[in-house]
């Protein structure tokens, strides 16, 4: 059991570094198991992220978008090492700027070859990599209704 955990953990750690470099367009990242020497309880999992050009700092100092991007990198790392059959993502790109959404969408598209995704989003760049688009609206009777959409049907506003 411990053996299997450490093999999976090492693999996830490698993917985490790759995904962070891809999504942040540079920098470095790693996952570590605390060995108890730095005052932390041994066995806990430390997340270390250094965006491009920056110096290594506490996780708490990352920006909202940097935190979201790190969370996505961690999720994608776990999904690529131990795939689930499908995954529902609810507005995970809400805090991302245009450049980061673009990289997120690309990484998502690659993963979608092996995992079916349902992505709830307000962002156009994410919608543009979708194979299918559903619109959910509220009728006057305050009941949800679903319609099939094509990219051309998506409103052009600041957010979709």
């Amino acid at each position, binding site marked *: 059991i411990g053996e299997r955990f450490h093999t999976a*953990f090492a693999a996830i750690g490698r993917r985490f570094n790759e995904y962070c470099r891809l999504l942040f367009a540079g920098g470095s990242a790693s996952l570590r198991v605390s060995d108890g020497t730095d005052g932390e*309880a041994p066995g806990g999992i430390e997340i270390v992220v250094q965006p491009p050009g920056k110096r290594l700092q506490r996780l708490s100092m990352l920006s909202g978008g940097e935190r*979201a991007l790190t969370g996505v990198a961690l999720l994608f790392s776990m999904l690529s090492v131990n*795939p*689930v059959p*499908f995954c529902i993502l*609810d507005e995970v790109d809400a805090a991302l700027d245009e450049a980061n959404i673009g990289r997120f969408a690309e990484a998502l598209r690659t993963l979608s070859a092996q995992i079916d995704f349902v992505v709830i989003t307000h962002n156009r760049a994410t919608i543009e990599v979708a194979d299918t688009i559903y619109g*959910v609206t509220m009728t006057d009777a305050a009941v949800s209704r679903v319609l099939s959409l094509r990219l051309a049907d998506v409103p052009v506003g600041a957010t979709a």
Partner: protein
Amino acid sequence: GRLRELRLHGFKTFADPTRFVFEPGINAVIGPNGSGKSNMADAVRWVLGEQSNRSLRTRRGDDVIFTGSQQRRPQGMAEAILTLDNFDGWLPIDFGEVSIGRRAYRSGESEYLINGAPARLRDVVELLAGGRLGANELVVVGQGTVDAALSLRPEERRQLFEEAA
């Protein structure tokens, strides 16, 4: 793709029988605030056996049943049926197509169904675990939670990893 379809009836704002037919790859879901997108995500969690009210944004089991609106009356039951394509036997059951259903009644009870036949929650959990659908946190990433792992203490994160990996 393995994810085929989700049918909802009486689940939160999905008062009328509603169908999401999923295609392989990326299915985007868009719409205005409060229209029901996260409610659909809740339904997937729920039909996969979620018991935590907090994850479902409810306080009691029957909060998932359509409570009515200014124009529509409340309903007595919520139902969600998830249909999966089992083409390569990734689910440990001898069917090419598998549907997992759940119903909730005002009395508070939940019923579970596998391919339309009554089942117990543990049968559903066992079936899903065999198909790597047990780790709910990886299967449904809720709104506002993508950076949750960063706020956990290292020991709590370890726990999350052991469930997921």
